[in-house]
């Protein structure tokens, strides 16, 4: 019984941890409707246009993923892309060191990208050299 409790707790913790990370993602679409002209003007008066900024960041992030996704040998699902006012940061992993340069080049080639910070790691797959 006690063990079951520990299991439940561990699972619950994992789900909480998982959902916490998922928030920034689901939070972004939620801010989408707020960026209708009237609303965005209101937020823009409060700060330096964060709503439109976030929208632009999101669009840029998509474009970077689309560019990486076209490469057949690179798994864009293993790569975390964040965008902030034209500055791209690449997280996650690729399967070969040569792919890091490739991904950085692809990101730099996307119109609107001003800088690329590379935090990609190399992760060899099972049975891979």
């Amino acid at each position, binding site marked *: 019984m006690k063990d079951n409790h520990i299991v439940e707790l561990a699972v619950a913790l994992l789900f909480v941890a998982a959902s916490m990370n998922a928030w920034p993602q689901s939070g972004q679409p939620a801010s989408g409707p707020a960026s209708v002209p009237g609303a965005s003007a209101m937020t823009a008066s409060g700060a330096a246009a964060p709503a439109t900024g976030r929208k632009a960041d999101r669009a840029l992030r998509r474009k970077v993923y689309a560019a990486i996704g076209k490469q057949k040998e690179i798994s864009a*699902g293993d790569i975390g892309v964040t965008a902030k006012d034209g500055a791209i940061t690449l997280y996650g992993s690729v399967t070969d060191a040569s792919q890091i340069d490739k991904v950085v080049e692809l990101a730099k080639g996307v119109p609107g990208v001003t800088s690329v910070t590379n935090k990609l790691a190399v992760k060899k797959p099972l049975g891979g050299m």
Partner: protein
Amino acid sequence: MKLKLCCAAALAIFATAAHAQSSVTLYGVIDTGMLYQSTSAATFQPHAPNLGHVYQLKDGGIYASFWGLRGSEDIGGGYKINFKLQGVFNSTNGKFGLADTPGTTAIFNQFATVGVSGPFGTFDAGRQIIPMIYAMAETDVRGAQYFGSILTAWLGINQAAGWPGTSTNAPIGALYDSNALVYNSPKFYGASLALEYAPGGVAGQFQGGTRESAVLKYSNYGLNLSAVYYNGHDTNPFPLTYPAAPAVPATGLANNRFYYFGAMYTISGFSISASYGIGKNPAKSNTADFEMISGGLGYQFNPSFKVTSGYYYLKDRNNSANHSSEFAVGAEYNLSKRTKAYAQVGYVDNKGTMNQTIIYGAPVAPGESTTAAMVGIRHAF
């Protein structure tokens, strides 16, 4: 004189053949560490006695040590002929890894393939690591590593289904298949398909010893999704006392089925994964019917340092007394481009006759809780 000419001609042919060969690479990895484990067992038998704690030099903290030869020849038109010969070895004693027959080893137990790649995708024939396990590795933060991962969890349900660990012939799904024909499609907007068919080669039995599997994957926008179907006929025909007792003749019996769905999401430095799998013997689902649930969380601090953790739960759907939960956490630090150091800790709580291991190749006592810790180094050449 004639002989001389012949030799010269032969040499010339050899020389041109060598030119056409685009590349051959000799490569490998050695992975060795020190392992402490609080319980141990000699076998995967459901009631194997606990032999006590163990300190040992252990191969494969991340993945097994292996070496191989591979090459490809560009035949033009975007097509290439590829070959790969690759096998694991135990870095602590130099022995080769398991083959598909109990009590034997194989030099190239991971890959012995020849195939073609082109705009249509890739096709490889021979013994190989099959698409199923990659689909699982890509949706596990722990990456199906040898220490506490979806691999040890999946092997856990195989052990519960009667796998003695003496061959690579797993009763639920497979990591390697011999005689396999594998097709991998190119990616379409991140989606890809892999199909496997392994003819059994059993005389008079079309279905005898055959395997088939299908894997559907998606990988883009930081998200990996995998769906797996695997079905095998006449899996594990070898009794425990083989070769003293002969193998059961193949009849085309479908006795190995596995379904798996998994997802992994990477955002900023974080990775999160979750999966669900069901494995059973469709011919005898009252003896082998298991569920496998996983969750993972990892963080990449910088390109050379990461911490990953995973939780793995196994359940016997025929007997609720048999279940197992495992938690593993590991840190990996790249000392250089080719060498990494790692430290990992795992805890497993096995109930009933469950014996989910913490690390591949080190059986734990069934029905007890076990802790293990390992530090090691992995060097590629």
